[in-house]
């Protein structure tokens, strides 16, 4: 695609705040309940009901703002956004307009071309709408379920700093990571707790003014966000190149057709008639409280990965895998710090690397993720105990896998299992030498091959020794002795 055009993209993310109850009432926020099981006069918009804000929701919103580098307002305001729709119980949504809680933040996104700073205009608090469902059967009605109505959301509005679908996807992934790591949002795109709308426009390359933009809604996966934006950029270019003008409208992404489709264009211009909600006092958050929330911010994914690479010797790849989910990252941190505390002579980065490999290879496959939490086959402390045995050469890696299986099944500790089953490695130099010599003596052909230069044959001898010692020989010693006795190739 010859780009004499530049794409300009801004993203609006609606992320549900991870609270037990709704923003303005005590109904539960649990997902998946039967329709209208978690409703009350407030979230149903019954006459006479009044909103009372959830303190934890506000705290999480402040946390999100701080994690994203925003200025947090000590006094902000709730405002009513007035419009009619069946999923809007009161005929208005309680949101924030002129005075949002957070403003002027940024997110650094890592791209192949380098790091790019994406501005965040504002992050404000608002309530979610109900769910409209297509009627079942022959009915032409829409069915409305108010379980979701009133769920606390933050709306995160980016500056139009993004220039490609790739950048947009990177931004979203990073944003989601940060929100998950700060416990603000559980990152569940399928359940709709993290939703994204994209504003897309194009302009001649080098132009400063913004072109007409369209809004793309209803994309519920990162892959689809990327595809939808790419498609929309291409579509707009085609329109302009054919001599037409881009129409300002809302478009929806069709998963089946892989294209964006216009929603009703015939709609009265949205005059939301925003005004400060008289039912709610100014939202006051003391600076001391903001500072306390900031001081208690958990380590963000970037910082964590940097630390792991520097102190624990992890590769970028390892670091990404182990930080994909906050509970996994926490688990690995626990394992690593328990190990390193007792590392003794071994270098932290070697210990860390080995632990990372083991966790990735043996643990991740058995982890059950549930929202922001996860269930692990064995507790972190228990795994650390197992890995400590490996570090001390009491057992080798292969034995460790066996022990792990038993730990998972029986719940017993590593040391107890090794002791009971006599799995401790054979480190006695005499026993190892005997086994090595026996292997060498038994296979003169391979000896000759090795000495002729086929160094890979060493592995064969190692295997033989292991077989003879039922896997218990210390591989390092075996290797060293073999080389010594076989001599230089």
């Amino acid at each position, binding site marked *: 695609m010859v780009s004499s055009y530049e794409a300009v993209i801004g993203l609006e993310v609606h992320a549900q705040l991870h609270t037990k109850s709704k923003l303005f009432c005590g109904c539960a926020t649990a997902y998946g309940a039967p329709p209208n099981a978690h409703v009350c006069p407030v979230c149903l918009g019954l006459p006479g009901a009044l909103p009372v804000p959830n303190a934890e929701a506000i705290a999480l919103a402040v946390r999100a703002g701080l994690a994203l580098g925003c200025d947090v307002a000590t006094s902000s305001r709730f405002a009513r956004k007035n419009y009619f729709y069946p999923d809007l119980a009161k005929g208005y949504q309680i949101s924030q307009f002129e005075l949002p809680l957070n403003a002027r933040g940024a997110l650094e996104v890592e791209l192949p071309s380098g790091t790019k700073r994406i501005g965040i205009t504002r992050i404000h608090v608002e309530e979610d709408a109900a769910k409209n469902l297509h009627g079942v059967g022959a009915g032409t009605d829409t069915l409305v379920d108010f379980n979701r109505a009133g769920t606390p959301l933050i709306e995160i509005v980016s500056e139009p700093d993004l220039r490609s679908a790739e950048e947009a996807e990177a931004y979203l992934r990073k944003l989601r990571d940060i929100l998950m790591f700060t416990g603000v949002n559980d990152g569940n795109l399928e359940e709709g707790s993290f939703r994204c709308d994209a504003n897309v426009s194009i302009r001649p390359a080098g132009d400063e003014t913004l072109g007409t933009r369209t809004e793309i809604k209803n994309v519920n996966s990162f892959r689809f966000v990327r595809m939808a934006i790419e498609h929309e950029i291409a579509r707009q270019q085609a329109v302009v190149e054919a001599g037409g003008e881009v129409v300002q409208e809302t478009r929806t992404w069709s998963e089946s057709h892989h294209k964006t489709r216009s929603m009703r264009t015939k709609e009265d211009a949205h005059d939301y008639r925003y005004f400060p909600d008289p039912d*709610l006092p100014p939202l006051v958050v003391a600076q001391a409280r903001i500072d306390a929330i900031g001081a208690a911010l958990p380590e963000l994914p970037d910082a964590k990965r940097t630390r792991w690479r520097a102190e624990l010797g992890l590769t970028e790849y390892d670091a990404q895998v182990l930080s994909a989910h906050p509970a996994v990252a926490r688990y690995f941190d626990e394992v690593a710090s328990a190990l390193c505390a007792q590392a003794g002579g071994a270098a932290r980065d070697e210990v860390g690397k080995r632990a990372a490999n083991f966790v990735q290879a043996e643990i991740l496959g058995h982890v059950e993720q549930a929202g922001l939490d996860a269930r692990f086959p064995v507790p972190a402390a228990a795994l650390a105990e197992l890995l400590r045995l490996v570090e001390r050469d009491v057992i080798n890696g292969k034995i460790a896998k066996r022990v792990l299986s038993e730990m998972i099944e029986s719940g017993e500790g590593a040391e107890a299992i090794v002791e009971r089953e006599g799995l401790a490695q054979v480190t006695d130099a005499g026993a190892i030498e005997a086994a090595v010599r026996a292997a060498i003596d038994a296979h003169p052909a391979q000896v000759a091959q090795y000495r002729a230069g086929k160094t890979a044959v060493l592995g064969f001898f190692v295997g033989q020794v292991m077989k003879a010692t039922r896997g218990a020989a210390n591989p390092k010693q075996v290797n060293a002795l073999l080389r010594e006795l076989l001599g230089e190739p």
Partner: protein
Amino acid sequence: MTRPGEDAVGGVIDVAEAVRGGARSALEVAEACIAGIRAGDPALHSFLYVDEEGALAAAAAVDAARAAGEALGPLAGVPIGVKDNLCTAGVPTTCASKILEGYRPPYDAHVIERLRDAGAVIVGKTNLDEFAMGSSNENSAFGPVHNPWALDRAPGGSSGGSAAAVAGRLVSAALGSDTGGSVRQPGAFCGVTAIKPTYGRVSRYGLIAFASSLDQVGPLARSVRDCARLLEVLSGYDPRDATSAVRPVGQYERACERDVRKLRVGVVRDELEQVQDPDVRARVDDAIAALESAGADVVEVTLPTARYGLSMYYLIAPAEASSNLARFDGMRYGLRVAGADLTATYERTRAAGFGPEVKRRIMLGTYALSAGYYDAFYLKAQKVRTLLRRDFAAAFARCDVVLSPTTPTPAFKLGDKSGDPLQMYLADIFTLPAALAGLPAISTPAGLSAAGLPVGVQLTAPAFEEERLFTASRAVEDALWRDAPAPAFAAPRGDRSAVSSAAGAPSR
């Protein structure tokens, strides 16, 4: 106080004492009340719904508690009417609107809970101007209310039903709501004491909202002391209302026993001079004289911004109302009139469900908030409101209460003003300022007009200073309304035996 034979029910404190002491049973009071309503209300139409079953059950519970030696609440056995914009669980709550005809809320308003906890007997829901929008109770979708002092006259509004029921001796007291004067003005027209508390003093949870930054629930009663007891029961912080004040409740009943010596009463001379009705001027003068004789000092104060009260109010209140009434859309409760599609259903439902005054205010409010007009209308009005608050603050640096007429005239005739909305709005000019400033204000009768109609006088105090309102209005009552004259319309006793007992008859 009242002439014997004319009052089968009795005032709040009288009934509470009689029930507590055993002189009367709560059941007897409730039966007399319901019989009286049956006989007398057809002429007034102050009730939209009588909850006979609920009332008799509540009365029986009070009697049982007393028999069991339990402590009784301050309103035990007292029959109370409740304005039909207050949610009563399982009992129709219509706001006098077709759009809520037959609607039964699944919960009680906070003030209803407080009444029940105090042992009150809620007898039914009183008529009002639709959605509390009006000053004559002629905007009810279910028919107007008649002033018991003269049946061809309006009782005032929007709490016209509550005021008429109290004045007509059908109940001991009633709850109303006040947004721009809707408790005080009908109080004045009907010769009863009515107070709008400080904004936030009484919880709005369960009060169907008209203008959220102005609405307050207020009691109407035959005497200042009765009103004080009621307000004390209703007041206090409610965690379900974020605008509810976290502040200890004053001792309003006790305040009635204090005297007004050295109380500084502020009077706005310009305002008084503009009153054209000779009866109103005379009664206000009487009230000033009464307070002076009792030891108060009168000082002159000014409220220069008060003259813009109407303009402020009729921009702010309808704006908030237009948003508050958006929920009446036929989707989840209330009337639904099906249309060809979603938009048509909304439009036809709301057109059929709302009366003309409500529509007018929704239109006005929507316009005042709309793009391009928000700054000039809504925001401007809110800024002028700040100036009004400053005026009051300055006045209260020099006085303890501000005295004014409650209304420019006594009760006008039904039909007199319904042709011209602006004329109707002008009935509120004296009551609007206190509502806009969030300040407590009470109206108490200061005598009758030459034609025998009650004239009320209003006292306003700084925020949360309701106590001095009761002190001062009790002094006015002592001097000018001691015999508590009753309206010509006297509730006939009615036939108590025709009232079914709590053991199982259907209510009306």
